[in-house]
Protein backbone atom coordinates (compact mmCIF):
# COMPACT_ATOMS: atom_id res chain seq x y z
CA UNK A 1 0.00 0.00 0.00
CA UNK A 2 1.40 3.34 -1.01
CA UNK A 3 0.42 6.87 -0.21
CA UNK A 4 -1.87 8.86 -2.46
CA UNK A 5 -2.02 12.64 -2.45
CA UNK A 6 -4.15 15.17 -4.27
CA UNK A 7 -4.92 18.83 -3.71
CA UNK A 8 -7.79 21.12 -4.52
CA UNK A 9 -8.91 24.60 -3.55
CA UNK A 10 -12.02 25.20 -1.49
CA UNK A 11 -12.77 28.82 -0.75
CA UNK A 12 -9.55 30.36 0.50
CA UNK A 13 -8.13 27.04 1.66
CA UNK A 14 -6.11 24.30 0.04
CA UNK A 15 -7.38 20.82 0.75
CA UNK A 16 -4.82 18.01 0.72
CA UNK A 17 -6.52 14.64 0.36
CA UNK A 18 -4.36 11.84 1.75
CA UNK A 19 -5.00 8.16 1.20
CA UNK A 20 -3.21 4.93 2.05
CA UNK A 21 -0.52 4.39 4.64
CA UNK A 22 1.66 7.05 6.24
CA UNK A 23 4.79 5.48 7.67
CA UNK A 24 8.54 6.01 7.68
CA UNK A 25 8.67 4.99 4.02
CA UNK A 26 5.84 7.12 2.65
CA UNK A 27 5.89 10.12 5.00
CA UNK A 28 8.59 11.98 3.01
CA UNK A 29 6.12 12.23 0.12
CA UNK A 30 3.61 14.00 2.36
CA UNK A 31 6.35 16.22 3.79
CA UNK A 32 7.38 17.31 0.30
CA UNK A 33 3.78 18.05 -0.62
CA UNK A 34 3.28 20.28 2.42
CA UNK A 35 6.59 22.05 1.82
CA UNK A 36 5.67 22.64 -1.83
CA UNK A 37 2.32 24.14 -0.88
CA UNK A 38 3.84 26.50 1.67
CA UNK A 39 6.58 27.43 -0.79
CA UNK A 40 3.82 28.29 -3.28
CA UNK A 41 2.25 30.67 -0.80
CA UNK A 42 -0.57 28.42 0.40
CA UNK A 43 -0.65 28.87 4.14
CA UNK A 44 -4.18 27.79 5.01
CA UNK A 45 -4.38 24.04 4.65
CA UNK A 46 -6.90 21.32 5.34
CA UNK A 47 -5.47 17.81 5.42
CA UNK A 48 -8.23 15.30 4.75
CA UNK A 49 -7.19 12.02 6.39
CA UNK A 50 -10.40 10.08 5.92
CA UNK A 51 -8.71 7.84 3.36
CA UNK A 52 -5.70 7.08 5.55
CA UNK A 53 -5.46 3.42 6.51
CA UNK A 54 -2.40 3.67 8.71
CA UNK A 55 -0.60 6.45 10.55
CA UNK A 56 2.45 6.25 12.78
CA UNK A 57 4.58 8.78 14.62
CA UNK A 58 6.59 9.57 11.50
CA UNK A 59 3.38 10.85 9.95
CA UNK A 60 2.62 12.84 13.08
CA UNK A 61 6.05 14.45 12.82
CA UNK A 62 5.36 15.47 9.24
CA UNK A 63 2.03 17.04 10.19
CA UNK A 64 3.64 18.90 13.09
CA UNK A 65 6.33 20.13 10.69
CA UNK A 66 3.62 21.32 8.31
CA UNK A 67 1.84 23.11 11.13
CA UNK A 68 5.03 24.94 12.10
CA UNK A 69 5.60 26.01 8.51
CA UNK A 70 2.13 27.47 7.98
CA UNK A 71 2.16 29.14 11.38
CA UNK A 72 5.41 30.86 10.44
CA UNK A 73 3.27 32.59 7.82
CA UNK A 74 0.34 33.09 10.18
CA UNK A 75 -1.51 30.32 8.41
CA UNK A 76 -3.29 27.27 9.75
CA UNK A 77 -3.44 23.52 9.26
CA UNK A 78 -6.70 21.76 10.01
CA UNK A 79 -7.25 18.04 9.94
CA UNK A 80 -10.27 16.03 8.86
CA UNK A 81 -10.49 12.67 10.56
CA UNK A 82 -13.25 10.58 12.08
CA UNK A 83 -11.45 7.24 12.19
CA UNK A 84 -11.06 6.16 15.77
CA UNK A 85 -7.84 4.22 15.23
CA UNK A 86 -6.19 7.27 13.66
CA UNK A 87 -7.56 9.68 16.26
CA UNK A 88 -6.17 7.40 18.95
CA UNK A 89 -2.62 8.19 17.84
CA UNK A 90 -3.30 11.92 18.12
CA UNK A 91 -4.77 11.43 21.60
CA UNK A 92 -1.87 9.32 22.86
CA UNK A 93 0.60 11.99 21.87
CA UNK A 94 -1.50 14.92 23.07
CA UNK A 95 -1.75 16.32 19.57
CA UNK A 96 -5.53 16.65 19.70
CA UNK A 97 -4.75 19.84 21.63
CA UNK A 98 -2.43 21.05 18.90
CA UNK A 99 -4.40 20.32 15.74
CA UNK A 100 -7.95 21.43 15.13
CA UNK A 101 -9.65 18.21 13.97
CA UNK A 102 -12.96 18.22 12.10
CA UNK A 103 -15.43 15.60 11.01
CA UNK A 104 -15.67 16.78 7.40
CA UNK A 105 -13.88 18.97 4.89
CA UNK A 106 -16.95 21.20 4.83
CA UNK A 107 -16.68 21.76 8.57
CA UNK A 108 -12.94 22.39 8.38
CA UNK A 109 -13.29 24.91 5.57
CA UNK A 110 -16.20 26.69 7.23
CA UNK A 111 -14.59 26.89 10.69
CA UNK A 112 -13.67 30.33 11.93
CA UNK A 113 -11.15 29.48 14.65
Amino acid sequence: MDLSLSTRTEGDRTVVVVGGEIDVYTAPKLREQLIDLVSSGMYDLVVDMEGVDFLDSTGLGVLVGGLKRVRAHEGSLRLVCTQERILKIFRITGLTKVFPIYASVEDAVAATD
Partner: protein
Amino acid sequence: MTQHAGVQAPPGSGADGVRDIVSVRLPADGAYLSVLRSVTAALAARLDFTLDDIGDLRIAVDEACAMLLAHAVPGSDLECEFELTTELIRISVSAPTLDGSLPARDTFAWTVLAALAGDVDSRVDADQRVVVDLHKHRADASGAA
Protein backbone atom coordinates in the same frame (compact mmCIF):
# COMPACT_ATOMS: atom_id res chain seq x y z
CA MET B 1 17.26 -9.50 -0.83
CA THR B 2 17.10 -11.69 2.20
CA GLN B 3 13.57 -12.36 3.16
CA HIS B 4 12.38 -15.52 4.73
CA ALA B 5 9.93 -16.58 7.35
CA GLY B 6 9.75 -19.82 9.22
CA VAL B 7 7.46 -21.42 11.73
CA GLN B 8 8.69 -23.97 14.19
CA ALA B 9 7.32 -25.59 17.30
CA PRO B 10 10.27 -25.55 19.69
CA PRO B 11 10.82 -28.06 22.44
CA GLY B 12 9.76 -27.08 25.94
CA SER B 13 6.33 -25.87 25.00
CA GLY B 14 4.15 -24.33 27.69
CA ALA B 15 1.79 -26.25 29.92
CA ASP B 16 -0.99 -25.87 27.42
CA GLY B 17 1.32 -27.15 24.72
CA VAL B 18 0.87 -24.16 22.45
CA ARG B 19 3.93 -22.05 21.86
CA ASP B 20 4.99 -21.20 18.36
CA ILE B 21 7.92 -19.13 17.27
CA VAL B 22 7.74 -17.22 14.02
CA SER B 23 10.87 -15.52 12.78
CA VAL B 24 10.91 -12.95 10.02
CA ARG B 25 14.01 -11.37 8.57
CA LEU B 26 13.70 -8.41 6.25
CA PRO B 27 16.08 -5.89 4.77
CA ALA B 28 16.45 -2.96 7.17
CA ASP B 29 14.58 -0.70 4.80
CA GLY B 30 11.37 1.22 5.45
CA ALA B 31 9.86 -0.19 2.27
CA TYR B 32 9.36 -3.50 4.08
CA LEU B 33 7.58 -2.18 7.15
CA SER B 34 4.18 -2.67 5.57
CA VAL B 35 5.02 -6.34 5.10
CA LEU B 36 5.90 -6.67 8.77
CA ARG B 37 2.70 -4.92 9.80
CA SER B 38 0.72 -7.41 7.75
CA VAL B 39 2.54 -10.36 9.32
CA THR B 40 1.92 -8.91 12.79
CA ALA B 41 -1.78 -8.49 12.13
CA ALA B 42 -2.11 -11.99 10.70
CA LEU B 43 -0.37 -13.59 13.69
CA ALA B 44 -2.37 -11.60 16.24
CA ALA B 45 -5.57 -12.55 14.43
CA ARG B 46 -4.49 -16.17 14.65
CA LEU B 47 -4.44 -15.79 18.45
CA ASP B 48 -7.94 -14.28 18.39
CA PHE B 49 -6.82 -10.83 19.49
CA THR B 50 -9.53 -8.21 19.15
CA LEU B 51 -9.51 -5.91 16.15
CA ASP B 52 -8.48 -3.04 18.42
CA ASP B 53 -5.55 -5.00 19.81
CA ILE B 54 -4.52 -6.12 16.34
CA GLY B 55 -4.51 -2.49 15.24
CA ASP B 56 -2.45 -1.54 18.30
CA LEU B 57 0.11 -4.24 17.61
CA ARG B 58 0.47 -3.22 13.98
CA ILE B 59 1.36 0.29 15.06
CA ALA B 60 3.58 -0.85 17.95
CA VAL B 61 5.69 -3.11 15.73
CA ASP B 62 5.90 -0.40 13.10
CA GLU B 63 7.12 2.12 15.68
CA ALA B 64 9.67 -0.26 17.16
CA CYS B 65 11.08 -1.08 13.74
CA ALA B 66 11.11 2.53 12.56
CA MET B 67 13.22 3.41 15.62
CA LEU B 68 15.72 0.73 14.74
CA LEU B 69 15.84 1.63 11.05
CA ALA B 70 16.93 5.15 11.91
CA HIS B 71 20.22 3.78 13.27
CA ALA B 72 20.55 0.45 11.47
CA VAL B 73 23.74 -0.43 9.66
CA PRO B 74 23.08 0.20 5.95
CA GLY B 75 22.46 -3.03 4.08
CA SER B 76 21.74 -4.98 7.26
CA ASP B 77 18.66 -6.98 8.15
CA LEU B 78 15.87 -6.33 10.59
CA GLU B 79 15.02 -9.42 12.59
CA CYS B 80 11.64 -9.93 14.15
CA GLU B 81 10.70 -12.86 16.32
CA PHE B 82 7.14 -13.52 17.38
CA GLU B 83 6.46 -15.87 20.27
CA LEU B 84 2.87 -16.97 20.28
CA THR B 85 1.04 -18.59 23.15
CA THR B 86 -2.64 -18.88 23.80
CA GLU B 87 -2.53 -15.88 26.14
CA LEU B 88 -0.01 -13.46 24.76
CA ILE B 89 2.16 -12.44 21.90
CA ARG B 90 5.77 -11.52 22.58
CA ILE B 91 7.61 -9.68 19.84
CA SER B 92 11.30 -8.96 19.68
CA VAL B 93 12.68 -6.77 16.90
CA SER B 94 16.36 -6.10 16.45
CA ALA B 95 18.93 -4.72 14.06
CA PRO B 96 22.66 -4.06 14.12
CA THR B 97 23.15 -0.33 14.60
CA LEU B 98 25.90 2.13 13.89
CA ASP B 99 26.08 3.56 17.39
CA GLY B 100 24.54 0.97 19.73
CA SER B 101 22.42 3.61 21.43
CA LEU B 102 19.04 2.82 22.93
CA PRO B 103 15.95 4.41 21.38
CA ALA B 104 15.16 7.78 22.92
CA ARG B 105 12.11 7.70 25.16
CA ASP B 106 11.13 11.35 24.91
CA THR B 107 9.76 10.97 21.38
CA PHE B 108 6.35 10.58 19.79
CA ALA B 109 7.51 7.17 18.60
CA TRP B 110 8.26 5.83 22.07
CA THR B 111 5.11 7.40 23.49
CA VAL B 112 3.00 5.60 20.89
CA LEU B 113 4.91 2.36 21.30
CA ALA B 114 4.63 2.36 25.09
CA ALA B 115 0.94 3.18 24.98
CA LEU B 116 0.03 0.46 22.51
CA ALA B 117 2.45 -2.37 23.11
CA GLY B 118 1.46 -3.50 26.56
CA ASP B 119 4.93 -3.97 28.05
CA VAL B 120 7.96 -2.68 26.21
CA ASP B 121 11.67 -2.49 26.84
CA SER B 122 14.88 -2.05 24.91
CA ARG B 123 18.45 -3.24 25.27
CA VAL B 124 21.75 -3.38 23.46
CA ASP B 125 23.23 -6.78 22.70
CA ALA B 126 26.65 -7.67 21.38
CA ASP B 127 27.86 -6.00 18.21
CA GLN B 128 25.71 -2.93 18.91
CA ARG B 129 22.57 -4.88 18.05
CA VAL B 130 19.67 -2.93 19.50
CA VAL B 131 16.64 -4.95 20.56
CA VAL B 132 13.13 -3.75 21.32
CA ASP B 133 10.94 -6.25 23.14
CA LEU B 134 7.24 -5.92 23.56
CA HIS B 135 4.48 -8.19 24.64
CA LYS B 136 0.76 -7.92 24.79
CA HIS B 137 -1.79 -10.14 26.48
CA ARG B 138 -4.97 -11.11 24.73
CA ALA B 139 -7.77 -8.92 26.07
CA ASP B 140 -9.65 -11.74 27.82
CA ALA B 141 -6.61 -13.84 28.70
CA SER B 142 -6.03 -12.54 32.24
CA GLY B 143 -9.61 -12.22 33.39
CA ALA B 144 -12.16 -14.81 34.41
CA ALA B 145 -13.82 -14.49 31.04
